[in-house]
């Protein structure tokens, strides 16, 4: 008993140490990643020049309407304008060099103090980056979660079904259809709009709900469902064949293991074999790849949302970039980076604790 307690304690210590190292590495990665985004989103300081010239223009415009300004000599005018500009620069923190400010931005970004947007406003009129991003997060999540949950469960069911019928007609069909996944979701979206909205006229072209939105919650929900059909279906079309194909191959590899043969020999039902001996060892890898693709797709929804005119985060990021609104770009990226890092870390923790095959080394990574 005492010995077991000892190994447990040393195991726990090792796991803890391992995670400490992981967290530190992840934090450094996050730090550098966010800093790169800040540099790119500010064009290495060039956005500041744009802002400065805008301030100069605004000051110039304001002075034109100033009575006192007209009676000044040209030298006084220049001095006065310069003074006003300096005050404005100071107000926006532009008097300091970009390098110093970039680290200030980094600190603000990492502490999620996202500040105010340059140009964009939220639908309610606020300039707070947090609001601008949060109000669009829900539509994106609705779209992405719906499509991904349907995708996950249908692909999993098909893959299991096909792995049992290796070489059948459906199996060959999926292999033949897999190359269709070369095209992204927005691409299928165009075709679906063409067929169902333009020609058949049974589903809307885009948007999230009917205009004007229905007052009644139930009708609102129905309208939302109607608008969800085409975008969700385009995500499915672009991913379901390849996911089914990949997971089917994966299941096939695992169903050749000796312990599966053993289970078959014992006379267990095929449903039980699937649940206990095939799904269980393959699940961690499938869930990991699924969780990661969910997060990366979340940022890749820009084009899909453009095609379907979906009022989501992807559209907002695109608006922010085309308006040179660095705070919003940085804000969205920071949230993305945090989400990704946390997911990776949480998955790591879960596997290290749950999966007995995962070997934990204090310095290296998790090896399976």
């Amino acid at each position, binding site marked *: 008993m005492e010995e077991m307690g000892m190994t447990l304690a040393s195991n726990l210590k090792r796991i803890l140490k391992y995670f400490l190292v992981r967290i530190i590495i992840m934090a450094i*990665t996050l730090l550098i990643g966010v800093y790169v985004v800040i540099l790119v989103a500010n064009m290495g300081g060039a956005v500041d020049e744009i802002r400065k010239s805008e301030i100069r223009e605004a000051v110039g415009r304001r002075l034109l309407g100033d009575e006192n300004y007209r009676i000044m000599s040209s030298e006084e005018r220049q001095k006065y304008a310069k003074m006003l500009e300096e005050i404005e620069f100071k107000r926006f923190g532009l008097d300091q060099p970009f390098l110093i400010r970039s680290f200030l931005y980094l600190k603000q970004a990492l502490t999620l103090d996202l500040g105010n947007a340059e140009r964009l406003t939220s639908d309610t009129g606020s300039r707070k980056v947090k609001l601008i991003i949060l109000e669009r997060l829900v539509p994106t999540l609705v779209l992405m979660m719906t499509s991904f949950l349907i995708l996950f469960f249908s692909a999993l069911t098909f893959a299991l079904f096909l792995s049992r019928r290796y070489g059948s007609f459906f199996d060959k069909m999926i292999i033949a259809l897999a190359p269709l996944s070369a095209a992204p979701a927005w691409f299928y979206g165009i075709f679906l709009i063409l067929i169902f909205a333009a020609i058949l006229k049974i589903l809307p072209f885009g948007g999230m709900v009917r205009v004007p939105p229905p007052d009644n919650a139930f009708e609102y929900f129905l309208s939302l469902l109607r608008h969800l059909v085409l975008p969700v279906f385009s995500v499915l079309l672009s991913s379901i064949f390849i996911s089914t194909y990949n997971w089917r191959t994966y299941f*096939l590899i695992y169903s050749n293991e000796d312990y599966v043969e053993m289970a078959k020999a014992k006379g267990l039902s095929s449903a039980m074999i699937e649940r206990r001996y095939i799904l269980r060892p393959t699940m961690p890898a499938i869930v990991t790849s699924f969780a990661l693709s969910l997060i990366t797709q979340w940022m890749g929804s820009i084009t899909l949302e453009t095609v379907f005119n979906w009022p989501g985060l992807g559209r907002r990021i695109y608006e922010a970039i085309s308006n040179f609104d660095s705070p919003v770009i940085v804000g969205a990226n920071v949230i993305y980076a945090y989400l990704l890092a946390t997911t990776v870390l949480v998955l790591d923790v879960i596997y290290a604790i749950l999966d007995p095959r995962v070997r934990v080394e204090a310095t290296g990574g998790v090896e399976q």
Partner: protein
Amino acid sequence: MSSILRGLKELKNYPSAMVGLAIIAFLVVLSIYTVITIPYSEAVKLWRGADQIWIENPRFARPVFFDWFTPKKLARTIIVDSRNNPNAKIVNQYGEDVEIIITLEFDFLYDEFPTEITLFMNKKIPGSDMYATFYWETPDGRRINLRRGSIKTRDSYEISQDTALRRRLGGKDAHVGLFSAGDNKKPLKGKYRFVIEAVSFDPEDDLDVRLIVYGTIHGIAGTDHLRRDLKIALFWGAPIALIFGLLAAVGTTALTMLIAAIGVWYRGVVDGLIQRITEVRMILPTLVILIMVGMFYSRSIWVILGTVVVLGVFGSGIKVYRAMFLQVREMPYIEAAQAYGARGGRIVFKYMLPRIIPMLIPAFVTEVPAFVFLEATLAFLGISDPVVPTWGKILYDAQSKGALYMGHYYWVVIPSVLLIITGLGFSMLGFALDRIFNPRLRRM
């Protein structure tokens, strides 16, 4: 090397691979044909459409092949030029004044109305005073007075835009009203005449006119909102897509492999650095970074290509190759090479990389469609080289002009079909190659 050749020979057992190869061959032939017949500088100039090169094309015209699938005869563009018909013009001298009467005749035998009518006029003497009256004569003998007014040196009369005329035609557009008899929904077929009676107060003066009755079909690919022939962008889309896709795929796979091999061989700091860069890169969202580079820095196709490769090199692929090289590193033949004195560079290039190349071929082919579609995605968002015509750019124009909503389906469908064919071609070949070169899958 021989194993690669053997694998390639095996390809003919896979029908999908043969289809894929046929598609790729078609694209290559199309690209070569395009580059020869429409030189790049020519294509750029045409696509920019300066100096009204496209003025004789209708807007939003469907491709000509639409005509083959309908019993109706679709309207083509009719151009009548007084310079080509010397009999069309009568010049009468009255002392200091000159009267010019031009009669343009044409047959209209189509089952649908044209989309626009415009008259272009060229007067000989700049600054002279010239007044004209325009008439329209229908096959059933009616004569409609269109307008009266002065003519400038280079003038045009957009008959379809004439609001006064529209009122007189009972609210119908000129290109409908002038071609219909009564309330008939179909155009009146037969010989139409367009008559201009002009008077100038300069005896030397002369006038030439060109009447364009724009149709609804044009060329093999149709036209867009700027009257540009879509053929140019559809044809040039092929070489651009191939070059972008292939270069990005080659660049990414080859560099990823090289960097993974270097990391595995030199271990320690180098390997750690490569892994950390990869991890930082994974935190950056690819599409967002690409859009930022396109918006902020440069939309040149080469800059975008370079960014795509840099972002692609430190992607998830590097971990896969690293795992492969870790196995290779421990193999006895590497030890043997070290024993006879081979150094790092030689081992990486001569011993480690060749070992992985069979794995590289399917990976590289399957990556091509992803990059072709990435370029299209960026173009669709409006981030593309301003001078190069591509398929994604057509889709962008079509989307921003609401092509699907307005019913201009050809505008969206043709470039999309070309894109998906390209994607399918490479992807079908890649899947077959994967099954050949990945023995683990072959067992399946």
